[in-house]
């Protein structure tokens, strides 16, 4: 007799470690890319803006699964001649793509800091760089928090797509369970509910961060 699927729950749950490695890595890399990209798009020279726009357009317009396969089978081994494992490739691709999205979140936040803030900073004698780091960034980063909360929820669910490369995260493990027990409804429902729990739990954490850094009257318009 086949084993019943719920005996495998601990095995599926262990996949959360990989799921959160993907999510954490992707968000962090995306942040490291997204913030400078947004600043380049807003304050950079025209040629740089064009390059960054092209980057954002490509990674926002191409499906994640195509990007994963393109990089795993094409860009890294063929074009660059490096062999990267599925996990590393997945984190890099999630990060590159999230960077494109995060740059949009952050650009919106930068744009919603009104012009007067820069003027007043310059009038005090700050250099453009001092004004950006002391006045514009601290405001824009706060305004962007709700956008990042959203980005977390998106990347969490997208991390499931990394099963296509065989990263042993929640969904890959769930599929193994389905194959070995012959039951599909229970395991897949369980996985789905797990993602819902992680979405709401993570959102709670971001909301705590938001409350902690929230400043009265500082809200972005239309972010």
């Amino acid at each position, binding site marked *: 007799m086949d084993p019943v699927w719920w005996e495998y729950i601990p095995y599926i749950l262990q996949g959360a470690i990989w799921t959160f490695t993907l999510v954490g890595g992707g968000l962090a890399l995306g942040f490291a890319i997204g913030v400078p990209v947004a600043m380049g798009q807003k304050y950079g020279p025209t040629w740089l803006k064009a390059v960054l726009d092209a980057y954002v357009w490509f990674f926002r317009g191409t499906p994640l699964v195509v990007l994963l396969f393109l990089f795993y089978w094409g860009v890294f081994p063929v074009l660059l001649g490096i062999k990267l494992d599925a996990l590393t490739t997945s984190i890099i691709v999630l990060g590159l793509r999230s960077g494109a999205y995060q740059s949009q979140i952050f650009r919106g936040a930068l744009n919603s800091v009104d012009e007067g803030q820069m003027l007043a*900073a*310059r009038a005090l*004698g700050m250099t453009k760089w*001092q004004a950006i780091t*002391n006045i514009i960034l601290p*405001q824009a980063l706060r305004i962007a928090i709700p956008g990042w909360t959203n980005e977390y929820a998106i990347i969490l669910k997208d991390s499931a797509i990394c099963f296509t490369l065989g990263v042993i995260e929640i969904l890959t493990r769930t599929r193994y369970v389905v194959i070995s027990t012959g039951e599909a409804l229970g395991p897949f429902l369980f996985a789905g509910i797990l993602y819902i729990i992680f979405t709401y739990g993570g959102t709670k954490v971001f909301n705590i961060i938001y409350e902690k850094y929230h*400043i009265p*009257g500082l809200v972005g318009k239309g972010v």
Partner: protein
Amino acid sequence: MGRGSEMVGDEIVLRVENIHKRYKDQEVLKGVTFEVRRGETKVIAGPSGAGKSTLLRCINLLTKPDKGRVWLEGVELTDPETNINKMRQKIGFVFQEFNLFHHLTALENVMIGLTKVKKLPKDVARKKAEEALLTVHITEDLWHKYPAQLSGGQKQRVAIARALAMDPVIILYDEPTSALDPQLVGEVLRVMEELARKGVTGLVVTHEIGFALEVADEILFMYGGRILERGPPREVVFSPKHEVTRKFFENITKLYGGK
């Protein structure tokens, strides 16, 4: 005669010479020349579109003039060799829309220029900021409020303190009361008047004729990008040489109920 006049010396602190500025096909400033002496309060008046705000921004180069020169205490600001950020520290600027930094408390707003630009130690900056806030009658209970938690009048007074704390040679006021509810205008004008009496040099773009008559040493009346007329406040307001000047002050008196 303005009340600040007894403090006015002969030393010219600001010289503005032949400033021109054009935006696309419109010439906003067509050669403006004047000077401000230490301790003096000068009011710039004139209809909207006369170029008053542009002129103020050309002085600290927030807007670059196309032609003309500006000196502060003998240093030419318009010289590309001059470190403009260093010179801007000496020019206070008060905006119509306050432009307080949204993420900083009242006290932090006043401190940030001192710590980040003047590089003063925190405790020294804090003391100076507190003094400046008390000078503009922002009491301790408001020091830790964020801009969104202050009234318009309080915001503008904090903005004045932010400028004042830098020990500026001159403060430029760009219509400092235009964005305020009428009942809040008085508290800001009072602070500006007190500063003028203490001998803080000021250049004020305003429609407040009462303030000009009480406090200013001279009115510059701007029209069409030029200074059309200038002189002691009472002369310019009550017996102007030009018809447009007379019309302007007549209308403004009706509108603002000047004394």
